[in-house]
């Protein structure tokens, strides 16, 4: 999913890069309000975990692999603003340290994975949580479905960028069909990894999970500490 230099022309990369920068600026002010002393370390851990798991490409179809993007996972764990920042840090490290993803394409990659992946994932998560029962199992299910949709959403982000400023002239419809069908398969892996990770944190430290807290605080019956 990391776009290399050359796929998309410079004017488009610069324009999308400006949008990505605006998204990061908004997220910085949003995260300033939402992160406290308890959630800030989890946001750092989330970025670190996503970096590690993005190295683990899994096979999806003949000759193709995929890896976690992590947008929905991060949004459910630490909220959408901190998630956007976490994903952006991961993409910056990958581009500058490992030359994974082009430097001129950094804005494109941030737009697709840190903005589209996170916000489509978060929106889907909120909608699912609304219709499901308020249990931990539904939070896991909602997160997994959100993760599934966030991957084709990020892939469509690339197709739009290709349609506007692709340096090649192959048909946009062909690119769209290829990107969506492949990334629906990768989305299944995304859903499985996200579901497992959210379950693990809900089992050990439910108080840290952003997507669980709003209901938990109202419903929890606290026993006196002895």
């Amino acid at each position: 999913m990391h776009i290399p230099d050359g796929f998309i022309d410079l004017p488009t990369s610069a324009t999308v890069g400006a949008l990505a920068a605006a998204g990061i600026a908004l997220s910085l002010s949003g995260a300033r309000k939402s992160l406290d002393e308890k959630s800030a370390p989890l946001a750092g851990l989330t970025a670190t975990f996503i970096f590690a798991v993005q190295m683990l490409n899994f096979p999806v179809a003949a000759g193709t692999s995929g890896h976690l993007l992590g947008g929905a996972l991060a949004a459910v764990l630490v909220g959408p603003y901190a998630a956007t920042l976490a994903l952006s840090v991961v993409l910056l490290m990958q581009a500058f340290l490992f030359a994974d993803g082009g430097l001129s394409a950094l804005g494109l990659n941030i737009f697709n994975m840190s903005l589209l992946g996170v916000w489509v994932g978060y929106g889907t998560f909120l909608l699912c949580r609304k219709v499901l029962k308020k249990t931990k199992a539904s939070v896991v299910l909602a997160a997994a479905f959100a993760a599934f949709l966030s991957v084709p959403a990020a892939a469509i982000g690339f197709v739009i960028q290709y349609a506007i400023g692709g340096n090649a002239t192959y048909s946009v419809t062909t690119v769209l069909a290829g990107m969506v069908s492949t990334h629906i398969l990768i989305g299944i892996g995304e859903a499985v990894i996200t579901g497992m990770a959210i379950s693990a944190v809900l089992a050990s430290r439910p108080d840290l999970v952003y997507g669980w807290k709003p209901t938990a605080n109202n419903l929890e019956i606290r026993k006196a500490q002895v």
Partner: protein
Amino acid sequence: MSNKKFFTFALVLCLGLAGGASFYASSQPDGLEKVAEDVGFIETAEDNANADTPLLDYEVSGVENDRISKGLAGVIGVLGTAAVSGGLFLLIRRKSSATSK
């Protein structure tokens, strides 16, 4: 689970995944790369401006053993990401006024 236990376990897990398990990851092209090959626009890909990084392709240049080279690159990436993101989030977090130690 205590904070210390939770974060220590998680960091060790990240180091294990990036430093050990990554050796077994699929090396097939990813979704975008495969589509680019199939459709044909892979030909427009250019070398990254910093393609001379000693950590290109998640390997440490000069380290002969594949397992060590990849594992070391993963450990560097995990520690680097933890340092940068940890620093950023600690810097922007809301300081709680209730702490009166």
